[in-house]
């Protein structure tokens, strides 16, 4: 059976949500091994087992948490040489991108980014990824030696526990981590808290773009979101302009979301934004530009001025809720 590895990112022993999605896909392709690195990583092993993982490599050295990419690349390269897996799957996350890209250069193997699906095909692999903001789906096949490295976008796969699962075999590694060469070291972490539900989990998202005109106009989005129990998101233009913290960003660089309802306010619908929200079940857009590409995606589009319509909408919502 094919050896399918998953780079299983954890934070203090809790798997990143994308990891369970990757494990769900991986077990349909072959025997799954999860590689979990950093303090507390062993705590996640049982969860990986529930998602059909047969084997877990664990290394709990703090360097995996405190140094970007290089310790993980060194270890993965060693383990890959020893076990020779067929595929190594990563989440398209900040760390996943850095580790997978470096590793591909180290090994001289294929790296396929932005993937939404992977399947076995003619004894090899076929990887599907969206292009041009998701208007085109391309299928890529690797032409280099194994393993093929694949970066899968969060929310592309629905995580499901395995029907039958046992406890995985856990191999705890303790070999020393070499940080004598030049590295990028994390000095401290800053968390920018948002009120309300998390963007990644929210059923309803109210998202704002440059069309809002000024940062203070996000207040009406916050108000609308509070009425709807929604999370607030933003386009790249908005976070780049400093109107909202980067943790609000939805799109290519930023978060991928899949809410039931996505309300885009003053967002034109540039490719790099739509790739992060196209999976929403229902899309509502308000924009003054009738040519805005967002209207091609919207189930309901209103051509008009967000500054006028959003305050009215807040009132309409309140009156319908009987306030």
């Amino acid at each position, binding site marked *: 059976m094919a050896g399918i590895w998953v780079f299983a990112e954890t934070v203090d022993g809790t798997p990143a949500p994308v990891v369970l999605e990757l494990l769900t896909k991986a077990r349909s392709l072959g025997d799954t091994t999860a590689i979990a690195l950093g303090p507390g990583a062993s705590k996640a092993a049982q969860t990986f087992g529930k998602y059909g993982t047969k084997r877990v490599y664990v290394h709990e050295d703090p360097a995996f948490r405190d140094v970007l990419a290089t310790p993980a*690349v060194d270890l993965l390269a060693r383990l890959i040489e020893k076990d020779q897996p067929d595929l190594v799957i990563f989440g398209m996350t900040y760390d996943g991108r850095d580790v997978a890209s470096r590793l591909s*250069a180290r090994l001289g193997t*294929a790296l396929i980014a932005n993937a939404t699906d992977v399947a076995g095909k003619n004894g090899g692999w*076929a990887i599907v990824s969206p292009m041009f903001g998701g208007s085109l*789906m391309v299928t890529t096949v690797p032409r280099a030696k194994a393993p093929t490295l694949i970066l899968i976008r969060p929310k592309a796969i629905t995580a499901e526990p395995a029907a039958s699962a046992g406890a995985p075999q856990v191999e705890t590694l303790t070999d020393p981590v070499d940080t004598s060469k*030049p590295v*990028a070291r994390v000095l*401290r972490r800053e968390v920018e808290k948002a009120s309300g539900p998390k963007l990644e989990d929210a059923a309803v998202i109210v998202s704002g773009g440059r069309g809002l005109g000024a940062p203070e106009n996000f207040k009406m989005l916050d108000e609308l979101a509070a009425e709807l129990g929604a999370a607030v998101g933003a386009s790249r233009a908005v976070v780049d302009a400093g109107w909202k913290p980067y943790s609000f960003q939805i799109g290519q660089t930023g978060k991928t979301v899949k809410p039931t309802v996505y309300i885009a306010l003053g967002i034109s619908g540039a490719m790099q934004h739509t790739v992060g929200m196209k999976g929403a079940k229902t899309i509502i857009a308000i924009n003054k530009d009738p040519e805005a590409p967002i209207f091609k995606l919207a189930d309901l*589009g209103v051509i008009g001025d967000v500054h006028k319509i959003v305050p009215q909408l807040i009132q309409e919502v309140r009156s319908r809720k009987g306030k």
Partner: protein
Amino acid sequence: MNVLVCVKQIPDPSAPGKLDPQTKRLVREGVDLVLDPGDEHAVEAGLQLVEKDGGEATVISMGPPKALEAIRRALAMGAHRGILVTDPALENSDALSTARAIAGAIKGQTYDLIICGTESTDGSSGAVPAQLAELLGLPLLSFAKKLEVSDGKAVIDRQTDEGYDVVEAALPAIVTVTGGINEARYPALRGIMQAKNKEVKQVGLSDIGLAGQAGTAALTQEVVEATPAEARKAGEVVEDKGEGAKRVADFLKELKVI
């Protein structure tokens, strides 16, 4: 302080991109080609550093001879000189091949910092900077929304899902910058005139010792199929004549959001 900035020429992102149905490659003919807007921020970051500390900013690109125009744009912004890696054998390059070609051109240069955008706006794989870091044996400071260089070290604010991490590396290092790091300057007429006389070195694969090791000869992957994605069912678009908010609220009620 010498800075290298990696840039890419791409089809104008405001026009929808196209793939050639035969070759499955990006159509570059008959479309406007521009310096990737993300790379303008990388050029700006480099210029700010050399303006403060002295030294030179060199712009590097890999692409067809036409990519010279993207380098000229960066020179017009104020960069000092350019290097274009161009070779017919590179025509079909994937990310790793691109990184090898750029790394080959960088070897032999003296630099303290290499700056790239986080990803190209057309391909968006974002793999080249980290591959370059690996090939050159340098630390990578990625997704920087703030960059400070002093005492032989670079410190960045690195974008994360929860906020940002403050990350440090000794020089030489590679940094990738997000658009939020600065407001890229617009080239002045004087800059555009001066750019015409600035040196741009063109090198081929054999000049950098990579003949047969990059481009088509070293392809790691191939696009075999490209199909239009299932389009979302066309929705209803209405013009607001005072009833827009009511229409949205009705729809939200229908969807049981309220």
